[in-house]
């Protein structure tokens, strides 16, 4: 969760500094331009090429004026927000106008003593992003003509070229529009992914996944490749009455135990369930273990594992299309609406999977004891609700405990005696002939979490 906040805070400070320095630089440039423009003598500026015929020409010279102005990061961000809604980039109008005035000022300084500068041409270069380059060239005419009075032929009032908008207000409205648009895009793409995931059959999924990761498909794994605990877990999954498993009954399930202390389990495409050793240490009864496996089977029923992958892929593709690679802040900002769009969706997936877990427990044992025990333990580990829980993709474990208990009560599901996990595991070993029944007298020799490879 820290990685959600830290880059944003660092970038926000940077942008804040850029806002202040940018405004100071703007003001300083504006004042310098006003001062220097006032110092220049009268000169005729003409974008036409004709030499006036009412003068005596002494000399002529090519003159140029060039300037490159860097945009501050804040203004840059405004432009990036603006491309989402389109329209005028008010913040840039002021800079490009000042850049032109500066270029003309330099041109005129270079044409000191000339009464006319004709054939003016503006050009631009492409030096880098966030930079404004202006090149102006012309022909300075040195004549006996000394224009006095009248208009100084400096640049006229540039007010018409600038939309006077408050940059901070622009930033606020741009940000809100940006976040709303991103949220809409991610929600819509989520729906599209959901539709796509549900239209892929289990067979197609297994076929595709076999191409990508053949090592992670049940039919390619030999029995000896599985550790005893893995075989026990798989036996437990396969002992669930088929009619209790929903659409996921077509999967050829497999279980892989991952040596990781965090209490977690996951559903991979193709029917492979990952269980962390941390999760195995957390559970005490077989019923509790099955509530977790049943929850993962619930995810297979909802095709949530495919949707999760699809959402990630679409998310990466969309951000590649919408943002520049160096647009760190916009990409970071867009992760929030994505998080919110994913969160609501993911939470409903979790609750659906909980429902399946309850159903599977009931089918296997005839009662739903220990259905919520793991969540109660996780709730204790997680502690009190905090702001972060609001953003979490999973509902708070305590809410899930309450929900499961309410559901069991409403449906009148009985609570029976749970099966101790150690005993269940040892019974499995004896039943499959891995150990003789007499070996069980030395208790806890065969532990679910340390009999691995």
């Amino acid at each position, binding site marked *: 969760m820290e990685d959600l906040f830290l880059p944003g805070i660092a970038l926000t400070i940077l942008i804040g500094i850029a806002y202040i320095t940018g405004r100071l630089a703007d003001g300083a440039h504006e004042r310098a331009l006003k001062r220097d423009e006032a110092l220049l003598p009268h000169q*005729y*500026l*003409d*974008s*036409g*090429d*004709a030499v*006036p015929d009412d003068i005596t020409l002494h000399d002529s010279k090519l003159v140029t004026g060039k300037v490159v102005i860097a*945009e501050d990061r804040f203004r*840059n961000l405004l*432009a*990036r927000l*603006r*491309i*989402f*809604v*389109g*329209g*005028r*980039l008010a913040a*840039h*109008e002021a*800079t*490009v*106008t000042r850049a*032109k005035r500066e270029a*003309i000022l330099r041109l005129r300084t270079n044409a000191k003593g000339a009464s006319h500068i004709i054939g*003016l*041409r*503006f*050009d*631009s270069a*492409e030096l880098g*992003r*966030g930079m*404004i*380059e*202006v090149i102006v060239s012309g022909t300075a005419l040195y004549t006996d003509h000394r224009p006095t009075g009248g*208009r*100084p*032929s*400096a*640049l*006229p*009032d*540039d007010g*018409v*070229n600038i939309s006077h908008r408050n940059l901070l207000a622009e930033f606020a409205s741009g940000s809100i529009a940006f976040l709303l*648009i991103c949220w809409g895009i991610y929600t819509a793409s989520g729906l599209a992914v959901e539709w796509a995931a549900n239209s892929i059959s289990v067979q197609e999924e297994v076929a595709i996944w076999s191409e990508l990761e053949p090592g992670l498909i049940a039919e390619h794994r030999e029995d000896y490749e599985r550790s005893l605990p893995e075989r026990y877990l798989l036996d437990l999954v396969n002992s669930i009455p088929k009619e209790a498993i929903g659409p996921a009954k077509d999967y050829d399930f497999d279980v892989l135990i991952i040596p990781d202390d965090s209490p977690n389990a996951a559903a991979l495409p193709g029917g492979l369930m990952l269980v962390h050793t941390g999760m195995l240490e957390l559970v005490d009864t077989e019923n509790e273990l099955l509530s977790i496996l049943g929850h993962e089977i619930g995810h297979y029923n909802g095709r949530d594992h495919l949707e999760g992958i699809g959402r990630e892929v679409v998310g990466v593709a969309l951000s590649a*299309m*919408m943002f*520049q690679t160096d*647009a760190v802040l916009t990409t970071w900002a867009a992760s929030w609406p994505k998080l919110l769009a994913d969160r609501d969706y993911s939470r409903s997936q979790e609750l659906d999977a909980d429902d399946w877990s309850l159903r599977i427990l009931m089918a296997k044992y005839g009662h739903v004891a220990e259905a919520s025990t793991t969540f109660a333990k996780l709730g204790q580990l997680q502690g009190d609700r905090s702001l972060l829980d609001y953003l979490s993709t999973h509902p708070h474990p305590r809410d899930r405990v309450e929900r499961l208990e309410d559901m069991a009560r409403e449906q009148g599901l009985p609570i029976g005696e749970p099966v101790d996990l150690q005993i269940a595991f040892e019974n499995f070993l004896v039943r499959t002939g891995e150990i003789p029944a007499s070996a069980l007298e030395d208790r806890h020799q065969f532990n679910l979490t340390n009999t691995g490879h």
Partner: protein
Amino acid sequence: MTHSPNAAAEMAAVTISHIPGREITENLGIVFGSSVRSRNFLFDIFAMLKNLFGGEVRSYTRLLEDAQQEATSRLIAQAKKLDADAVVDVHFATSQVAYKAAEIFAYGTAVRLK
């Protein structure tokens, strides 16, 4: 005075150095109009897809059109502030000031006519 085809503009802005049939009496100096615009992200995405297959990117043509119109009308607005009668020797220049945003810049010489 000859009328510009752009009714809203009212004032003539031409790319040649005179207004046909009129005489220039005074050169009021250079005027310019600039417009910095972007299309919204949907058009950007369409444009990127178009980039795969080739062909005219209408949404960006439209962007240039809008920007050019705004630049011209700002050029004329500036000329009006100088009490000019027309803008001659109008040229256009473009630059990319920000990602996916275009600047169209119009400049010309404001003149008084007889």
